[in-house]
């Protein structure tokens, strides 16, 4: 799939290269590897007389993660000028962010006002913004879905989901 995209969206101006995303991902993996290794050293990486210690496996896992992500980083840097395959074009990325940003807002909202109101807002936003639905159907779906979830989870299956101050006020 990536190959196809390289072919079809070769235009550098309208697209984002995969150099920086590659660096970011491999860099994060490298950071994780360091964290794994540091903590493994703390708990002991040796092979005691009754088998490996707590840090034995994580230590080597960390080393291999470090080696592989380091290799990826290195090969990106070595090919920095030459190869920069297309990660995604700008239009595609804006699509992704159109989803990612509301999702982040949604998760923050869940922690603040509970899952029901946040879900209603999320569904409502999407239907209006991207679906161009009328107010009536938007309201019906965005209220109906959380209500159904409330009934299924809280009432029927007795699974408490995160609730906010408004639900508490209503006595749930």
């Amino acid at each position: 799939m990536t190959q196809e995209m390289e072919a079809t969206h070769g235009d550098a101006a309208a697209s984002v290269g995969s150099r920086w995303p590659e660096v970011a991902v491999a860099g994060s993996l490298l950071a994780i590897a360091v964290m794994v290794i540091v903590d493994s050293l703390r708990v002991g990486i040796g092979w005691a007389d009754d088998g490996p210690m707590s840090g034995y496996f994580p230590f080597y896992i960390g080393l291999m993660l470090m080696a592989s992500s380091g290799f990826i980083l290195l090969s990106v840097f070595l090919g920095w000028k030459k190869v920069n395959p297309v990660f995604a074009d700008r239009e595609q990325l804006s699509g992704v962010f159109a989803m990612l940003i509301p999702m982040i807002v949604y998760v923050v909202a869940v922690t603040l006002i509970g899952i029901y109101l946040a879900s209603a807002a999320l569904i409502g936003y999407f239907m209006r913004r991207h679906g161009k639905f009328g107010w009536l159907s938007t309201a019906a779906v965005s209220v109906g879905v959380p209500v159904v979830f409330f009934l299924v989870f809280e009432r029927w299956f007795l699974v408490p989901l995160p609730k906010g101050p408004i639900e508490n006020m209503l006595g749930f």
Partner: protein
Amino acid sequence: MEELGNLINGFSVALTGPNLVFMLVGITLGVLIGVLPGLGGANGVAILLPLTFSMNPTSAIIMLSCIYWGALFGGAITSILFNIPGEPWSVATTFDGYPMAQQGRAAQALTAAFTSSFVGALFAVMLITFLAPLLAKFALKFGPAEFFAVQLLTFCSFVGMSKEPPAKTIAAMMLGFALAAVGMDTVTGQLRMTYGFPELLKGFDFLIAVIGLFGIGEILLTMEEGLAFKGKTAKINPKVVLQTWRELPRYWRTFLRSTAIGCWMGITPGGATPASFMGYGMARRMSRDPQSFGKGEIEGVVAPETAAHAAGTSALLPMLTLGIPGSPTAAVLLGGLLIWGLQPGPMLFIEQKEFVWGLIASMYLGNIVGLIVVLTTVPWWAAILRIPFSVIAPVIIVICAIGAYTVHSAIFDVVMMLVFGVVGYLFKKLRYPLAPMVLALVLGDMAEASFRQAMLLSQGSLSIFWSNGLVGGIVTLALTLLAWPLWTGLKSWLRAREAHYRLGGVR
């Protein structure tokens, strides 16, 4: 043929009008539980428990166990439709099920999944019926070394030559192992890599990771293509079921292989999730066209579903005869037994004959009822894909959030789900494979614990892995499977080089 007589007796216990209704209720509820990633068997039992007090124990446990069958069937639905595994054992089903749905073949994929589940379960129940005492003895042979051998085999059967760059495959796999190690080390009781955060005490849950990596990651990928699900054009026709059935007998070898894997993993008890991965891995290995896997190959749905359901069913055997539950849902059934004053263990088959055989008979019936229920709903499930993306996408996000939250009732997990979602998207774009990472996450801590338990037993000597025929055989098989792709890879590389030189190095 004492078993046959017992079974017929069992059918007469199980096959009453009210019991059939209870089965229907249990299955329907179970399917719902399987579909929604936030619900587990425990919740289903919680609802039905008060109902069961007016019944006799056999009817009650039939209804409760039907929740289990329903959940096994239902797990495949969201995997195929939205790439969200409803239950851990349906992760491998997403690999080919979701591409099929994208190609407009959702109904075929669902039919194949349900039918395979049924076949796997049916074989497993037959095994339980006729070989229960023998199998229970076999399960006793499994100590830590044997468990590690099986986990190694699962891993080796799945890992092979992948299309992704090797460095990225290793990085993804190691990330999975590293995440699996977070939390408490079961062998020494030490906390690892929690860095003082209480949220990390419980480690990274497999289900939260896959909901994020697969479910949320897929939504982000879909957004790249604009606001549309590719499965929109799915043909919704009840005939699809029959057409798919006509196709399925071709895969009899896959059915048999996956059933064998599933039963083996269920009894030992390795669990349904590793079984599904092993089933998928072996099917790809043995296939004449391994390249088609992951691109919507129906065999890639058949193999994991058969194995998962065979394992899920045969896992009830160690639960009944040894009292060790093979899965959380099985553990809930165990609780159900206890409330009825039935203590699972070797005496159950002797002291509660009528109950046990009633239950076994209900496994046959429950699966048949279950298959009919889920097959009739195939067109409706496929029709969900016709809902506009702008409506279904936020609903999927909500379902994912609920699913992640309910695993530990922790908001932190919802945040983690989002992080995993972004990771899933980036990995997919940058060609890091997700499957080895997920497999490492599910097997990592299990395998490490078994390995170190084995080391404690042998006082640090690796020879324990060849100390008897059983464990030695499995380990050798696993290592062979691991070496095989290297060997074939080397061979084809040599051949390619030869050809390259013969052509005078012209490309």
